[in-house]
């Protein structure tokens, strides 16, 4: 391999990165970060000290309160700048590489036709009290997202989009009726962990309603799911911010259409 200048880093391998790095303000290794938060206490010297105490616990040292402002009588807002002492070890980051190849629309149709020999059935919904359908529609509707057509566009995929605020029992019922291969659920509202409660309730309901091994493939998506939490949520895969329909279709083929060898093995995310 010829040595490459790091400026082609966009495609840089982790081996090209230093073992440890630190945040960068304007000089390598300076460790500089910006933090803001509100403390529930009246503004003043004690509050500034409390802000520095917190910054210290976060590993910022030295930390400087560059702005503090009273919000009403009982709250103070702070902006803090400083250097974190922590080291970042890029090679320890577990990167969930896409575990499936990206397929073209044609390849998707062909794979389903050839190996599944029937339409792949997908039931989609925004569950609970969440009514943010733009995300799931971006994946399912023909119109699609980021220039890619949605799942509906594929001849060999049957899409049933139940829309917003679908109750979990209704979703389970409909998945059964449609003999869904996969159930696609969207969760956008995250306040008080709504997305987590809804998703775990949903997966539990499916596991209860279907015999083991017969549960449809469960997929959730939304902008604020934690990566790697599919297992805890009881679903097969999570999709996050900026997901495109093509990724989802390719994944479904990978996960649900047995293609001779190693297909449909690597479920969890």
């Amino acid at each position: 391999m010829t040595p490459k200048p790091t400026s082609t880093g966009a495609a840089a391998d982790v081996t090209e990165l230093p073992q440890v790095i630190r945040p960068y303000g304007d000089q390598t290794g300076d460790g500089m970060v910006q933090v803001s938060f509100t403390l529930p206490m009246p503004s003043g010297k004690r509050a500034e000290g409390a802000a520095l105490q917190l910054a210290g616990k976060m590993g910022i040292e030295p930390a400087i309160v560059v702005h503090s402002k009273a919000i009403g009588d009982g709250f103070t807002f702070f902006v803090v700048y400083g250097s974190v002492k922590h080291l970042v070890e890029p090679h320890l980051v577990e990167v969930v590489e896409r575990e499936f190849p990206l397929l073209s629309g044609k390849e998707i149709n062909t794979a389903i036709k050839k190996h599944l020999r029937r339409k792949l059935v997908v039931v989609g919904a925004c569950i609970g009290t969440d009514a943010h359908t733009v995300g799931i529609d971006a994946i399912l509707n023909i119109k699609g997202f980021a220039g890619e057509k949605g799942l509906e566009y594929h001849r060999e995929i049957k899409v049933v989009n139940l829309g917003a605020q679908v109750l979990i029992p209704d979703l389970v019922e409909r998945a059964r009726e449609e003999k869904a291969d996969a159930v696609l659920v969207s969760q956008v509202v995250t306040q008080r962990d709504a997305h987590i409660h809804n998703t775990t309730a949903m997966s539990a309901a499916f596991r209860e309603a279907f015999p083991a091994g017969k549960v449809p493939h469960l997929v959730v998506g939304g902008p604020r799911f934690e990566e790697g939490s599919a297992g805890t949520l009881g679903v097969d895969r999570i999709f996050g911010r900026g997901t495109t329909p093509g990724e989802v279709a390719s994944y479904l083929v990978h996960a649900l259409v047995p293609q001779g060898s190693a297909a449909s093995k690597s479920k969890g995310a």
Partner: protein
Amino acid sequence: MSSRNRPILELDKADVRRARSLARKVGKPVVDIATKHTTVSVERATLRLAGLSGADHERVPWVNHLVDAVREGVGLEHGVSLPVWDALSRGEAPDLLTLAQKASSRSVDFRIPEAKAATAAGKAARKDVAAGIRTIDKQRAQRDRLITRHGDPKQRPWIYLIVATGDIYEDIPQAQAAAREGADIIAVIRSTGQSLLDYVPEGATREGYAGTYATQENFRLMRAALDETSKELGRYIRLTNYASGLCMPEIATLAGLERLDMMLNDSMYGILFRDINPIRTFVDQRFSRQIHARAGIIINTGEDNYLTTSDAVEAAHTVTVSQLLNEYFAKEAGLEDWQLGLGHAFEINPDLHDSFRMELAHALLARTLFPDAPLKWMPPTKHMTGDVFRGNLLDGFFNLVGTLTGQGILLVGMMTEAVVTPWISDRDIALQNVRYVLNAAGGLTEDFHPPRDGFIQTRARQVLGEAIGLLDDIAAEPGKAPLLEAIADGTFGEMKRPATAGKGLDGVAERADGYVNPAIDLLETGATR
């Protein structure tokens, strides 16, 4: 609203007239349908006016028990007033509450009274319902008094801020803090699930998701807190909530009783974004707007929402059409111009060349078409990202459009729009942003003169032209109520909503000939007894 003599935007008067008459043409058949139906929520609202409140131990409100029981017994076509007050006069129970309690175990026999009994029941009902109407009247007078005492905000636009913790006891201090920092209007956002509940929850609540339940007690607590703050600040702080969803008429009623000052109330939002049945919506909406008219409440319509699912440039004219329809429906229900907080929003992709000027064009069009309405100007949401620094900048330019085009109500944008429901600090930063822009650049209206054939005026006229075109198309559609067809076809917000589907349809009943609803009578005549 605007202090100018010559309008900044010159529109062809004939075009404007034509737009309005088309809106009337398209809206009228829908009003006709509304006056021929009632809904469970309209009837429950009527009972609430008559003083029935509270809920059973499972928190099911007594108004729901009573209406359900009447409906099971004799149907809804005549309204609940005759059967209920007939039952009372027959001594089934000493009062409404007891009647509802008994009815909840289905131990009351209801009938549709005839002749004298009917007249007596109608009279008794009217008497009780009128008491509620008079409470609303009193609250309106009280509002007027407090405004006289504390004063209105010094500037336009009025500054509108949301709180959304889910917990009324967290909401209150946050609302008060916001008012102290300059908010003129506080809106308590509702929990995500509420609009699809076919009952109004009871009591003070602390468990909403991304919003706090709208309940009579929460209304009362927040209004009392803001009354205190108004006094402290020498400025009357207005309170807003949502008369949308399946309980629109009841929530409107509670708002009137508890002296809320503004209500979100759109003619199509529930249909498009909550999949509520169109007929249910139009019937409920007419009643709720009649209440708002009586209560002196300013409504806020929801055109901003269309631009979250449609493109703000391509669909700009659908906003105008919806504003014209909202205006028509509002006036038909008795609202006056000063009560029409028609909505529109800064939702054009900020990367688009001249996007800021296009926003100015759209905002000016609304301003010019509805010169006497306060107009509610909504901040960027769709193109906000996790880049909060950029977010605060965009909000600043949104504020600038607001002040430059003389909007009446400015819903303050939050830099964390794409991240979380607003934090206490987000609100503080946002208000500081508003203060800067209004104070430092507000006077720029003096210098802002888009030329007759320049980009801004041309764009505004183009949007008006497209709006007229769309109304023409709708009006030309065959069928009794072409607007319903248009809604079914996905004309607004790209949502297809047929009149025969959607939530809450089973709560609609066609009125029978002998339908009686003293609330509607009082509201339509303006009578107090």
